[in-house]
């Protein structure tokens, strides 16, 4: 027989699974450290690509200056300066990534906790129903 309370609970859980739950469950498959490390590595890759693009634009923009002072520029110093800026930029970007994804992970865990609690309630409902059916049979 249809149990109204159980259908309501299952509907709520199904709505969560289709919507926000999809992302939360994907996040929930990782350990916290793994998830954050994965995102930081992604950020470092994207940040490096972005830095390369900015550097490319800068080199093209200052192309004439570089050509004119090709032998006067201390390329080692220039390289060190670029490396320093790259490391600072990537460091800041990785820190922002860390903060954002720590918050997202804890939010997803909280959502999943509610979902698992609902699952437990559902299991209890099934058990109760089965026990009642057994009693009526006896």
């Amino acid at each position, binding site marked *: 027989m249809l149990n109204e309370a159980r259908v309501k609970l299952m509907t709520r859980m199904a709505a969560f699974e289709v919507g926000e739950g999809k992302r939360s469950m994907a996040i929930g498959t990782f350990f916290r450290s793994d998830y954050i490390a994965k995102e930081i590595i992604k950020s470092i890759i994207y940040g490096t*690509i*972005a830095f390369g693009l900015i550097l490319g634009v800068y080199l*093209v923009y200052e192309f*004439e200056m570089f050509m004119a002072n090709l032998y006067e520029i201390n390329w080692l110093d220039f390289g060190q300066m670029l490396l320093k800026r790259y490391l600072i930029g990537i460091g800041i970007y990785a820190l922002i990534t860390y903060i954002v994804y720590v918050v997202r992970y804890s939010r997803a865990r909280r959502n999943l906790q509610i979902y698992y609690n609902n699952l437990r309630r559902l299991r209890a409902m099934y058990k109760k129903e089965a026990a009642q059916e057994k009693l009526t049979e006896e």
Partner: protein
Amino acid sequence: MAKLLMIREQIKSFYSRYEGFCRPVLKFLLAFLALTMINKSIGYAAVLGNPAVVLVIALFCSFFPTNFVVVVSTLVILLHLYAVSLETVVTAGILFMLMFLLYFRFAAKDTILLVMTPLCFILKIPYVVPLCAGLVGSPTSMISTGCGVVTYYLLQYISGNRTALLTSEDDPIFQLEKFRMLIDALMKNRQMMVVIAAFAITILVVYLIRRLPVDHCWTIAMITGMLVDIVVILVGDLKYQTMVEIPALIIGSLLALAVGLVLQFFVFNVDYTRTEKVQFEDDEYYYYVKAIPKNTVSLADRKVKKIKGQTGTSQATGSDSSRRSALTAAKGSRDAQEYRVRRTAATKEREVVRSSHNSTKRIIMPEDVAGSRRERLTEIEKAAAAKARAERKKNNSGTE
């Protein structure tokens, strides 16, 4: 106001009921508007300017997530710019790539502001963006709005200097010069910088005030945000000579305030809960559930009842109607008689005393005597009803 509230509830009800149709239509309209505006401002590729192509692309966008509109708009912009020169498309492409790589991967929900901001600039309502972003968004919307402002100013520069940027020579030095022009247009545009700063500060101020636990916080946030926006732009104008048109700034800001008030009316304290259609199964059943949100304020369901004159509408003959009215009167008199009998029986059994302190009539019926009296009352009522029934039977037999 009550009428407006009613309209809001009707819109909400309509949206929650037909959400499956409303969202694609809204996405279609957004894509259509965005593409039309892009074509209007930088429509250099003739193929993309064709209304049929615009309609097909907009229709295509309506089946995909909202962010797809942003991706399509970006691609259309790049295709238009390709018709101008390679340098412009490379510059715009790098700019968009930086935005997507560094920021929009964090805030996918804010991506729509990248399209909405230039759109509002083209529609001459740019000051609406920071107010609305502060009201419904988060502080990170500052970055999205900033990206939108940069996109608008780049496109504006390209459309204003098209002849200078057109592909005419294959000389690398000339190409380099065009590239530099574009980078300078982005990096040395003080007006753009002032607008970005003003919008960022406005968003932050609006966001912080609208979250305060005070009454009318949304209205206060909007008015303060509007003033802050005006002040920052004027200060920037004074310092960097950005040539801002002050009447346009003030009118635009007032218009933004009006749009903000409309937004407040439709968004503040209203839960646009969607209709959920879910499927699941257990050991016994497959469930196909459609969960429709409850409406908190019931709508006035007006029914117009037309009361017409008896002579004008009645199809019955005069004798029929008189007989019917006589029967109704007889029935009424019988009911009235029965009612009178019941009423007198009831009043006899009640003690009515006047309260001394507030001089109101009270019926006192103590609990211990109430039961027995109620029983007696029902007995009297039964007797009265039986008497009335007998009388009615007698009357009926008389008429027959």
